[in-house]
């Protein structure tokens, strides 16, 4: 009876479930299986127990990649959201044509292909005569080798990332801003609240669910950072991570192990470690959401 009643529902969700099973569940489960095997993609996999995990966790590249990742995530996610919030508030203060112009202008980096964005930024960062160094030169500052100086490389990447992600986050936050009832601001103004107090006591709390999405999505994306550091450092499967591995990140290391060294079992273990980390982080975020009552 119940099956007959819900059959149309099952039929309707079946296409998604089939695609989800084929393209998500199966790769995850097979990835887990291969992570316990030495496998080059062609020869039959050979069971090696936890050796792949042990090899990764003990490798110098893994600790460098994780160190870089933690610093990157800790800076890029909050900074990206702060910038996006600032931009959203700015765009929200405009109406009509100007609002459209700024929204489109800030969103443009999102639709730019990664290789094009990286090429633009390599020009901006170029030592001696890159745009940024030319501007520094106007103030008498010496040329900075942003993409090859290990002290600046990570920050150079973060700037690019914030430039790209801010536009995407801005659009989402802007949609959230539009949903905040105007009456709340009017009441606050009558009570004598200034602009800053309105942002702190009305805007941010009312944006809670939107900010939760933006933070969670930002964390998940940041954990998987790959294309920007890969392109900014001119990496290839045999050499990646930039000068002294200052821009080495887990997904880059995983790709190198898979396609550079043809160690797919090890790469699968790497991927699985990263998946677990992302799942745990997401679970923590959802726990926080429940605790803060953002649901």
């Amino acid at each position: 009876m119940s099956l007959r009643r819900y059959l149309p529902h099952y039929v309707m969700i079946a296409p998604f479930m089939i695609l989800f099973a084929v393209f998500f569940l199966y790769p995850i489960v097979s990835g887990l299986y291969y992570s316990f095997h030495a496998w080059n993609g062609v020869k039959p996999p050979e069971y090696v127990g936890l050796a792949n995990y042990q090899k990764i966790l003990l490798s110098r590249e893994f600790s460098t990649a994780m160190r870089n990742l933690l610093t990157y995530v800790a800076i890029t996610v909050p900074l990206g959201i702060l910038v996006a919030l600032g931009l959203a508030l700015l765009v929200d203060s405009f109406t009509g044509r100007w609002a459209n112009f700024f929204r489109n202008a800030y969103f443009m980096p999102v639709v730019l292909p990664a290789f094009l964005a990286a090429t633009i930024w390599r020009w901006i960062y170029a030592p001696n005569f890159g745009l940024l160094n030319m501007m520094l030169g106007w103030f008498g500052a010496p040329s900075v080798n942003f993409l090859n100086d290990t002290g600046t490389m990570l920050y150079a990447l973060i700037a690019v990332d914030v430039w790209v992600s801010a536009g995407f986050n801005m659009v989402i936050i802007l949609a959230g801003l539009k949903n905040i009832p105007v009456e709340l601001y009017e009441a606050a103004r009558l009570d004598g609240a200034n602009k800053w107090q309105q942002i702190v006591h009305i805007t941010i709390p009312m944006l809670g669910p939107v900010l939760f999405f933006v933070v969670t999505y930002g964390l998940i994306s940041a954990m998987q950072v790959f294309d920007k550091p890969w392109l900014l450092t001119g990496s290839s499967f045999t050499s990646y991570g930039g000068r002294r591995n200052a821009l080495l990140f887990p997904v880059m290391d995983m790709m190198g192990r898979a396609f550079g060294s043809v160690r797919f079992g090890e790469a699968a273990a790497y991927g699985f470690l990263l998946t677990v980390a992302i799942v745990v982080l997401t679970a923590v975020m959802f726990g926080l959401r429940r605790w803060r009552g953002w649901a």
Partner: protein
Amino acid sequence: MRTLSKLRFGVAGLAALLAVGAAGTAAAEDVTLEYWVYSDFAQGDALALQQEFIKEFTAKHPGVKINIVGKGDDDLTAGQVAGAASGNLPDVFMNAQSVGAQLVEVAALDNIYSKWMAMPEEFRAQFDQSALKSCMPKPDELYCLPYTGFGSLLFRNLTVLQKAGIDTSKPPATWGEWLAQMKKVKEAGMFAIPDETLVFNSIAEIYATSGGTDSWGFDWANHKTRIDPATMTKVLQKFVDMAPLNSGTSRNDQATKDLFISNQLAFHTVGPWVNPTYEEAAKTSGLKYDFVLIPGDESGKTGGIRSYEMVGVAPGPHADLAFEFAAYITEKAQMARWAKLLSRYNANAAAMAEPDVAALPLIKVSVDAAHGAMDVAAPYFVDSVPSCYNSTVIDMASATADGSKTPEQGAEEMISQLNDCLAK
């Protein structure tokens, strides 16, 4: 009436059988070969010539269609490795010899030795023997036909050198002369050279000014590096000496080419592929430059690296036809046309010796450069180079040039870490 009907039935059946047979023959003849090339070979004049080769080959092989696809370096490797795993490999493809071992490991490359040996001696004798040998990890194993190649060159910006008061009529003959010129350039307020510690190949190019193939690359039998500590110490000292003179950009950066074109950089050690850019700049912005051999420690010794792009054939039902096509495009007549179009050195020695090819200035210098250069990652096709290898070389060279280590410490730590890396 009944007999007539039977006859009609019989004739119709025979006709149907003949039709099926004819269709079967046609199907057997209709073969499409997938041919993957570097993306720069799949555009403009290069693509036009490749298509001409395809047209010539298919004219002699009715029913054969060849589908040419251009891909970037990493896409070639990823596609071939993934293709081997999924059983969907391109039939003929290009790649670098340095990834040959990975491709052999995943069975993406057919051992073409028997097919090669079946070719006429006249064809086999056309190839540069050392280039061919680099495709043969064992006497009876041949995994590629060497294709275009390079020996690194020293591109000189003559305007910068003249501004620095350097006589450009004679290229530097030794490392000592070269370093003295670099210092003069820096004193004149310009950059001497890109940062040679940023890219594995540029480190190898400078290593070759002191060492050679016998003290570079891999001892796969013992899983150890062949780098000689004394030579590496000497080379790391060179990076220390060059540190205050360099532009901070790598040899591959667009910024390096821009500095060179805008007369702010004196030297650029790189392969001949940058020449079209510099040639264009000479026409449009008056860049004055030339290209010479990279000087070694002593007069007569040259630095730089050499390597070949390869044409490989995938195992499978079309392997024979694919090899035939690979042999056709690497044959003297095609390689000579290819060399003339691109001004690029290649592994067909007979084509390189053609008077109108040998007369091309870039090829003339490239031939000498390749003969004096060091193999960048030999021996090939034996074992996959772990990713930690190149990054260790770059890290240690950078750290020493930064002053974090002495050249002796840098060399010692580099070799120890490389051995650990290969042992893993």
